């Protein structure tokens, strides 16, 4: 029978499958970071347990780390959390890319970069954006800290087989439209809980045409659509991206692995519990105006009016959102001024993202009164960008060029947007207070954020900045 990639990977990983119970699934790769792991290691210590397979774990520090001066973590509690990860990795034998390590970076950027992420693997991390790794045809999902502890001690997880969902994007996206616009459009159209209880597979011509980096941007935000995992069947692009990376098999062994990876792609005619589709022609550069990732629209539009909402509850949450965001009903997006720009995060801080932004910025200046920062997703990205001279493009335009980390995506370190100020951000969440208490976040692609930095307000990147042309 024709099977989806989701079922193929699931079936391969069942250790125990008894009727009336969730399946016990084997986990091939466990990624860890400083914020969601300390209580799990503490649990091991309290119960005298050890890490079953430290060789299948990989840890880094990203959420808390400073992006200006690496040596100075002002907050003593943050310092303690980082030291705790060092000590835990040492004690339990878990490989760690610490702040000074050349492989350090946002956990979802370095996994693929190092080739730890591979098709067919089950991958977990105490972080909801683990869905990013699905771009490679891996079954990758975020878990809570108790589950982190469970995986550390048993290398398995009890999981009920989720339903499957296909999101198909037909056609080809137009020049000037980014992967970020695809996923933001899907979330706005179908809702932030469309994927609850499902694992999503993205299919269709538009997805096939995306680069691996772009596929990661799409899969990254599966969780914003409510799906714990989102993936894309592997193809030649997947194989070529991985060839020669640090942790993939080398030589003949690689070709053998690649053959197996390609066989995982969903079979022709495989069926899903649910299927939705959109056409690429519907997608234009997109921004969010509200306080959840589903509250967004194309840049040519306006903030909605209360009268657009028929349902009273929706109207109330709309009014609460625009009050928090300091916006008016019907306001054109291109009239909205910004004070901050953040180019970074596991959604959009890979080399290709920085290149896209740099093309817009090159030879121009950041508008007076705007503070703009670029935070590369990893130290490797930073190094490569510097080799290409992208750092110069940004700094000459007036951007700050930082060390890698999560930074202003969640503002746990010193990179914070002050209350009442507005930020054009390439990250994935625009919840109240996400980038700082009272901060107002608008999500968009790197090119759109760069254009906002130059103009000091939201701008249709296709108009003034003929990128891609």
């Amino acid at each position, binding site marked *: 029978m024709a099977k989806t990639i989701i079922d193929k990977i699931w079936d391969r990983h069942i250790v125990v499958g008894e009727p*009336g119970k969730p399946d016990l699934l084997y986990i091939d790769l466990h990624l860890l970071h400083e914020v969601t792991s300390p*209580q799990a290691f503490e649990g091991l210590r309290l119960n005298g347990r050890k890490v079953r397979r430290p060789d299948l774990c990989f840890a880094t520090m990203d959420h808390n780390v400073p992006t200006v001066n690496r040596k100075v973590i002002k907050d003593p509690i943050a310092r303690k959390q980082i030291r705790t990860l060092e000590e835990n990795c040492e004690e339990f034998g878990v490989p760690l890319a610490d702040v000074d390590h050349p492989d350090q970076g946002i956990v979802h950027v370095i996994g693929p970069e190092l080739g730890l992420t591979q098709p067919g693997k089950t991958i977990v991390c105490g972080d*909801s954006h683990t869905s990013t790794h699905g771009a490679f045809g891996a079954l990758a999902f975020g878990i809570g800290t*108790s589950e982190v502890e469970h995986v550390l001690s048993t290398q*398995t997880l009890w999981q009920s087989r989720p339903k499957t969902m296909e999101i198909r994007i037909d056609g080809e996206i137009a020049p000037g439209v980014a992967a970020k616009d695809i996923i933001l459009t899907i979330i706005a159209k179908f809702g932030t809980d469309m994927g609850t209880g499902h694992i999503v597979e993205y299919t269709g011509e538009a997805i096939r045409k995306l680069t691996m980096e772009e596929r990661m941007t799409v899969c990254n935000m599966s*969780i914003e659509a409510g799906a714990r995992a989102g993936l894309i069947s592997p193809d030649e692009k997947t194989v070529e991206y991985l060839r020669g990376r640090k942790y993939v098999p080398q030589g003949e062994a690689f070709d053998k692995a690649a053959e197996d990876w390609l066989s995982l792609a969903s079979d022709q005619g495989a069926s899903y519990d649910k299927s939705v589709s959109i056409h690429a022609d519907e997608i234009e550069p997109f921004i969010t105006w509200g306080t959840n990732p589903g509250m967004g629209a194309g840049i040519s539009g306006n903030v909605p009016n209360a009268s657009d909402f028929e349902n009273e509850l929706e109207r109330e949450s709309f009014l609460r959102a625009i009050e928090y965001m300091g916006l008016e009903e019907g306001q054109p997006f291109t009239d909205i001024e910004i004070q901050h720009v953040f180019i970074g995060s596991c959604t959009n801080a890979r080399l290709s993202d920085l290149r896209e932004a740099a093309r817009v910025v090159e030879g121009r200046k950041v508008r007076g009164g705007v503070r703009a920062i670029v935070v590369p997703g990893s130290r490797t990205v930073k190094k490569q960008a510097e080799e290409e001279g992208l750092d110069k493009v940004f700094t000459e335009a007036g951007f700050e060029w930082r060390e890698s980390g999560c930074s202003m995506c969640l503002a746990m370190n010193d990179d914070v947007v002050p209350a009442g100020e507005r930020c054009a951000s390439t990250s994935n969440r625009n919840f109240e207070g*996400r980038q700082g*208490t009272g901060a107002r976040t608008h999500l968009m692609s790197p090119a759109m954020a760069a254009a906002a930095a130059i103009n000091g307000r939201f701008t249709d990147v296709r108009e003034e900045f003929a990128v891609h042309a």
Partner: protein
Amino acid sequence: MKPINEVTSIMTPLDRSNVDTDQIISKEFLKRIERTGFGKYLFYHWRFDAEGNKRDGFVLNDPRFDGSEILVARENFGCGSSREHAPWAILDYGFRVVIAPSYADIFYNNCMKNGILPIRLPEEEVEELLAKGKAEPARLAVSLAEQTVTQPDGTVRRFGIDPYWKEMLLNGWDEIALTFKYEDQISKYEEAMQRA
């Protein structure tokens, strides 16, 4: 994990949808390395203003609901970040039961691992509870064994739950200890993988 079966308490009607875990526990409180002590930070920015004064009109600041162990909210509760600090904060504040039409998947699992019972009821029934609970404090009786929620007027609503999780919650079992019983199967799986 503390076992849970019967909980009788005033409910706290939190009339909001898409409550994300960033609101449940804000990132500035995620730096602690313990599992406890998060209760005082629950819904911090909804409860307190920039000066740390209580905000009027937020339901957790209403003394009529003090001591409540049952939180009622709208759909897609617990969406966003996977942070287990969210259920830790809910539990540490004193809630043992959450009732909503739907939950984000990771949050739902995280509740189960911490002895919090997340009940799914149809939207109309949650609507009814919120309306009653806002009008005047209402005491609910929840039974996990019976899978029921009983209202003050005797109305009984039934809810569904996976039998595996029901048993775990009722007994307060340590899931890791249970999984260790499958050690042989796990080792065999690993050997088979090695050979492949």
